């Protein structure tokens, strides 16, 4: 018997809603056949079977929330009945906010029954706890080593964190933890996924003075809110703004639009902006970095993956276009189309949502001019693009009509200063003001 457990299908996914079963009990399946469709806070994913066999038992129903670690289906893979587990039920109880442990990897719920099958008599530990169980020495040691004890897997009884566990953790994360004081929010010290800052706010009941309707927020909305809180609480933002004269660019695009259309690409300004950005990022590497405030180091990334903030029916999503430095303008244009479409239809893969090094947000598409964009943690800058409009501009002491593009750049002021931001914008202005430079670079 093979117990299929819902595994972490990607960074930060630790629960999802079962939308659809592709199999029923008694079905014969092959390795790779889809078992079920799960909706996570990022995507809808079809989960394939890792083994050949016969579906023995489905342990979740459509609409159930399944957590990473839950056994969802038992498959008879011919490995013998000796390994069968005894009647595991997925127990789903909604968690109250207070119950959710901060910084624990995924809130894994397990059945109330201890699973003791002969090949794995390991008792999974409940990880829903407000306070991590740890020995006094382990607590003191954690403090000394600057380790957030919530992140350490305890091997003691009931998952108690013992001093040995801290030594193990330190060994594993050697080179990551050196600072004596770690902010609990630092992603670098934390395992992938589910690491959002929960600021200490006095939670007060919201007073109500009339009729209301309470609507629970969607998963995507929750992710957005957590990401925004993280960004704004960790990164000291500041923004600089400017207007770029993009008359030449408008001309170039208008000329090339039809050529692109023949190739099936609707050419927007975005690929040009991305191209310009790539050149500027190479010249100002700090804008393509992350700040590791544990080791007090800047991580310069030698790859250029640009996130495109995308307005979808479910809320904001940021699909990422990979390796833009190796792509031409048309190719980038095509990529944008594909990926934005995927984001809007929720068919995007997790891989396409991660790995960004710099993000662009185009609120110009909705008619706005300026903004103060929020940086996508752990990136260090974000470029906001406003609506290109014809405006009267003074050029050689004459008032002329030019196509102007308002631009807002937010930076992480811990490692980037206003001067750098100004210079970075100037270079972008130059590149976008003279699109030939883009083609010749």
């Amino acid at each position: 018997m093979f117990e299929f457990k819902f595994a972490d299908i990607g960074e930060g996914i630790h629960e999802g809603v079962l939308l659809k079963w592709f199999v029923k009990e008694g079905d014969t399946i092959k390795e790779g056949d889809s078992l079920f469709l799960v909706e996570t806070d990022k995507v809808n994913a079809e989960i394939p079977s890792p083994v050949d066999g016969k579906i023995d038992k489905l342990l979740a129903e459509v609409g159930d929330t399944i957590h990473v670690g839950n056994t969802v289906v038992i498959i008879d893979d011919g490995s013998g009945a000796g390994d069968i587990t005894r009647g595991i039920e997925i127990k789903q109880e909604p968690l109250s906010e207070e119950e959710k442990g901060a910084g624990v990897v995924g809130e894994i719920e397990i059945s109330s029954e201890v699973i003791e099958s002969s090949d794995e008599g390991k008792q999974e530990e409940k990880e829903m706890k407000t306070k991590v169980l740890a020995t006094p020495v382990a607590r003191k040691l954690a403090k000394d080593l600057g380790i957030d004890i919530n992140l350490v897997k305890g091997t003691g009884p009931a998952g108690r964190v013992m001093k040995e566990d801290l030594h193990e953790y330190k060994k594993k994360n050697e080179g990551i933890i050196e600072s004596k004081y770690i902010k609990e929010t630092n992603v670098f010290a934390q395992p992938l996924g589910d690491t959002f800052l929960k600021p200490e706010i006095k939670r007060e009941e919201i007073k109500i003075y009339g009729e209301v309707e309470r609507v629970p927020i969607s998963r995507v909305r929750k992710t957005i809110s957590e990401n925004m809180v993280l960004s704004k609480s960790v990164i000291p933002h500041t923004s600089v703004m400017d207007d770029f004269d993009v008359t030449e660019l408008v001309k170039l695009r208008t000329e090339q639009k039809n050529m692109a259309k023949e190739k099936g690409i609707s050419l927007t300004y975005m690929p040009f902006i991305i191209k310009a950005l790539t050149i500027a990022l190479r010249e100002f590497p700090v804008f393509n970095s992350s700040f590791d405030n544990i080791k007090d180091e800047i991580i310069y990334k030698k790859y250029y993956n640009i996130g495109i903030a995308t307005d979808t029916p479910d809320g904001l999503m940021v699909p990422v276009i990979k390796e833009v430095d190796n792509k031409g303008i048309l190719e980038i244009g095509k990529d944008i189309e594909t990926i934005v479409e995927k984001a809007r239809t929720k068919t995007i893969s997790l891989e396409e949502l991660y790995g960004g090094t710099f993000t662009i947000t185009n609120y110009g598409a909705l008619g706005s001019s300026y903004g103060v964009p929020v940086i996508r943690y752990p990136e260090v800058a974000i470029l906001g693009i406003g609506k290109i409009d014809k405006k009267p501009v003074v050029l050689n002491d004459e008032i002329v009509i030019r196509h102007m593009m308002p631009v807002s750049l937010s930076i992480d002021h811990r490692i980037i200063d206003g001067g750098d931001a100004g210079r970075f914008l100037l270079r972008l202005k130059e590149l976008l003001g003279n699109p030939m430079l883009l083609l010749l670079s």
Partner: protein
Amino acid sequence: MKQYDILVLGAGPGGYVAAIKAAQMGAKTAVVEAGELGGVCLNVGCIPTKTLLKSAKVYESIMNAEKYGIDIKDKNSVAINLDAMVKRKNQAVRRLTSGVKMLLEKNGVDIYKGFGEVVDKNTIKVNDEILNTKNLIIATGSSPMIPDIEGIKESFEQGYAVTSTEVLDPKELPEHLIVVGAGTISIEFATLYNALGSKVTILQRSPRILSGIDKDLSEAMAKVLTKKGVKIIYGVKHKKFEGNKIIVEVNGEEKTFEGDKILVSLGRTPNLKGLEKLNLETDRKGIITDERLRTNIEGVYAIGDINGKHLLAHVASAEGIIAVENIMGKDSKMSYDRIPSCIYSFPEIATVGMTEDEAREKGYDIIVGTFPLSANGKALAEGDRDGFVKIVANKEYGEILGVHMMASTATDMIAEGVMTMELEGTLEDIARGIHPHPTLSETVMEAAHLALGSPIHTLK
């Protein structure tokens, strides 16, 4: 042919506990025992000695009754009924061993009485019956070690030399008991016979008694015994036995000691007989095992005295559980750094963890807090002022590395040290825990306060 998941060889405190645990975890289990259920511990070790020691304690209390304001007109009329003492001891033993039998049966463990001979790692022969097993747990224990000294064999044959087993069934009280060796067993019997009025002489090779425990404790115990009239001779080289005499060399001089009985208590030797076909890796102490109790043979585990790690019943039981858990697929490990050990002398001695010297040798930066019983209310009320509690802690976090105590009820008090260490507790935790008053347990709290540098009931 009977087929088992787990077969346990030996039903002492290691074997029978392992068998019960195995059955509880769903394994088809059998236990094979050549002697009595309960092994040395229940039959000729822990339990019977404690029973006799209690009788001795009662006698000692009566003889010292005036200390508590009770006059006994004629102390000569107070008589020791040795037969009754031994009978009481046997009753206690019987009750416990039948309890073990009942527990094994109720848990569905098959019991085979007879000597289990290993044919191979999956096959055991008992009284011409062949048993098959997937896993084997060896729990055959140990026996008193008889050193090769001239004349010792004859002395045993004549009934002068005895081991701890025979000395539990005295026909008459020896006027003079010579104890060869000064380990736990020696000290307990020295205490017993001294309390019952025998003259006791301890002949010890090394320059201290109880060489395995904290130095301060062994010194204190030597003092207590000497005060009670026990003679301790150190630096002894055993030359030969001559019936009821033992000829030794002390400081280059030859000396002869003569007694009614000579208790030979120089350690124990593993019972490896019947295991020869397994080709187990062994050393001087016994079968070599790892922290999961695995031997060099796949599917063969060794627990208790037979692996020679710690010759203690409670270690055997703990190892039994760990071995079974490993067989059943649970990854469990023994931690050998938190093992309590007890000596049922008057007063008792109990220790857990590292001694002060060990901790220093291992390079720990330590703090030590020692609190005397003489500053404790309950100890004074009871008139048992001898002893102290000593806590050894790591300076860095105050983590408890060892607890060593001598007190009338030290063996019951040591559990606090064990538990604190199990939970990786600190001096702070012991000091903050509210200990009931008046109890001897307060001395543990006071020792912690002392180590932290702020004693309440004593001066620094």
